[in-house]
């Protein structure tokens, strides 16, 4: 009963946001029509010829579309897993620090690389990985042959994933830290009183209190299964590592250099959105049905 009287207020609270979404997100969605067009910039959205699903089939008909999709999914999945777990571990470790100044300093420093663009970071990385660079010196110290990492199809994917984690883990950890900060300290107190070891505390108190955050982030991250990180790869790859590093976005980008290819780019974007939407909706439903848990 009383909920009904509240509902009016809820609608009012949502109203401004919904209006803005309508104007700046929903209305522009007429742009997805481009995905079904042979879009020509001179003709615009209203006059470009329709081509049905041709833009969608394009990616699948390429001679090496299999390789491109495998690369994309491999890199994206590795990044999703690494970018969920490593910031989590880091946040838990940081949470164990008691010296507040040290803790704050570390936390501030690790979030800084987020602000460096891949243009800059990629040149730092390529310097580090040169034949006479520090990484190869380390390799030689352990008796290995020096490696041209960025020209090696064996190494390239790992470098991509590792450097992405390096850049983003500090920033990604912030959400976990915020969630930890909201945990009722009396829970830790109680665990401490019971004589729980540190690891036990982490296992029984810290992790469960992070569970909603982890589930939310994981669900949303699943939607990225076709996003391997365009900016990063574009700045780090070369034709020598197309075999392991060419992904959907970089391919579409190169296709676009020649002739705009807005249709292809929009189609690929739409395809990625649909897949993300389906995956997210599925995990939402599964969580709801089997764990009776709503992610958002």
């Amino acid at each position, binding site marked *: 009963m009383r909920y009904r009287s509240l509902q009016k*207020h809820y609608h009012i609270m949502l109203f401004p946001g919904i209006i803005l*979404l309508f104007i700046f*997100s929903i209305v522009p969605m007429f742009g997805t029509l481009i995905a079904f067009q042979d879009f020509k910039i001179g003709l615009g959205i209203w006059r470009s010829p329709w081509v049905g699903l041709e833009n969608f089939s394009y990616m699948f008909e390429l001679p090496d579309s299999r390789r491109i999709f495998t690369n994309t999914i491999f890199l994206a999945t590795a990044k999703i897993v690494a970018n969920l777990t490593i910031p989590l571990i880091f946040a838990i470790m940081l949470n164990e620090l008691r010296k507040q100044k040290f803790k704050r300093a570390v936390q501030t420093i690790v979030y800084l690389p987020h*602000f460096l663009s891949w243009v800059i970071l990629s040149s730092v990385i390529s310097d580090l990985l040169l034949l006479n660079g520090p990484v190869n010196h380390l390799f030689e110290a352990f008796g290995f042959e020096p490696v041209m990492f960025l020209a090696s199809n064996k190494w390239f994917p790992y470098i991509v994933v590792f450097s992405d984690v390096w850049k983003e883990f500090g920033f990604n950890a912030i959400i976990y830290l915020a969630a930890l900060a909201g945990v009722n300290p009396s829970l830790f107190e109680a665990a401490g009183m019971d004589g729980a070891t*540190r690891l036990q505390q982490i296992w029984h108190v810290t992790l469960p209190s992070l569970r909603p955050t982890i589930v939310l982030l994981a669900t949303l991250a699943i939607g990225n299964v076709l996003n391997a990180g365009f900016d990063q790869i574009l700045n780090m790859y070369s034709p020598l590592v197309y075999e392991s590093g060419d992904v959907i976005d970089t391919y579409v980008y190169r296709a676009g250099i020649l002739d705009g290819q807005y249709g292809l780019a929009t189609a690929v974007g739409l395809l990625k959105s649909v897949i993300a939407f389906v995956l997210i909706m599925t995990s939402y439903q599964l969580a709801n049905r089997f764990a009776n848990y709503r992610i958002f």
Partner: protein
Amino acid sequence: MKLVRSRTIGSSVSTAALYAAMACIALLSLAPIWYTTAISFSDKAAAAAGSVTFWPQDFNLVSYATILGDPTFLGAFWISVKRVLLGGAINFVITVLMAYPLSKENREFRFRSAYMWLLVFTMLFSGGTIPLYIVVKELGLFNSIWSLVLPSAVPVFNIMLLLNFFRSIPKELNEAAEIDGAGPWYMLLKVYLPLSLPALATVTLFSVVNHWNAFFDGMIYMRSVDNYPLQTYIQQLVVQVNMQDISGDPNKLDLIAKMSNKTLNAAKIVISMLPILAIYPFLQKYFIHGIMLGSVKE
């Protein structure tokens, strides 16, 4: 409030190891920033030769003078500040207003799921640059700061974070307050918000960072460089020339001389990072110290 902890020899060894590990991780993260800063204070020719490593070479401030000495810089800085304040405020209000009703159970708010999926939908699907450009143009927002803050006014990801946080606030509070006759607005402003400072600090940080870093919208919606926000302004200082398209054009030839200016690029990164660093501690304290959930403790 001090936490009670059992301290044994084993734990102090592991504590030392923990501190050492964290210090190493921090150094690893600091390295690229340090390197960039060193380049920004170096001589252009030394940087172009790639000979800068740990310390600046031929220390000088030319790059900073170039950026800071341009009157457009101050204007762009001010536009960015306005953008962050206005955009951040709008994001904040919208986030709070939307997260609260959406944090309710379906039985409490019947249309919750419909709204929620609409939000998820808009987060995942986008019409692309061209239609948004047309919309902004038709609304007459070109050259206006509103073109920078309104299209990104609804940060769906932030809303999801906050609504999840709201959900973790005990239901008993709700009921207690409602018995006292508190309406939803009172609940939101006086009960939920004060309890959610870590999450609020996080979403605020995210929207501030987003607004501060954004450059593409400024570039396409602003018709004069005088209206560029800082990142857009700085972005266009980094000269890119298509080497196949020089054509003896004196302008383009002039650009080549400026193209490989690594110190300028580095300085622009340092300069654009500083304001974020400056405000960071004020937000950081909320999500790193945590808060005492006084009312929950009882």
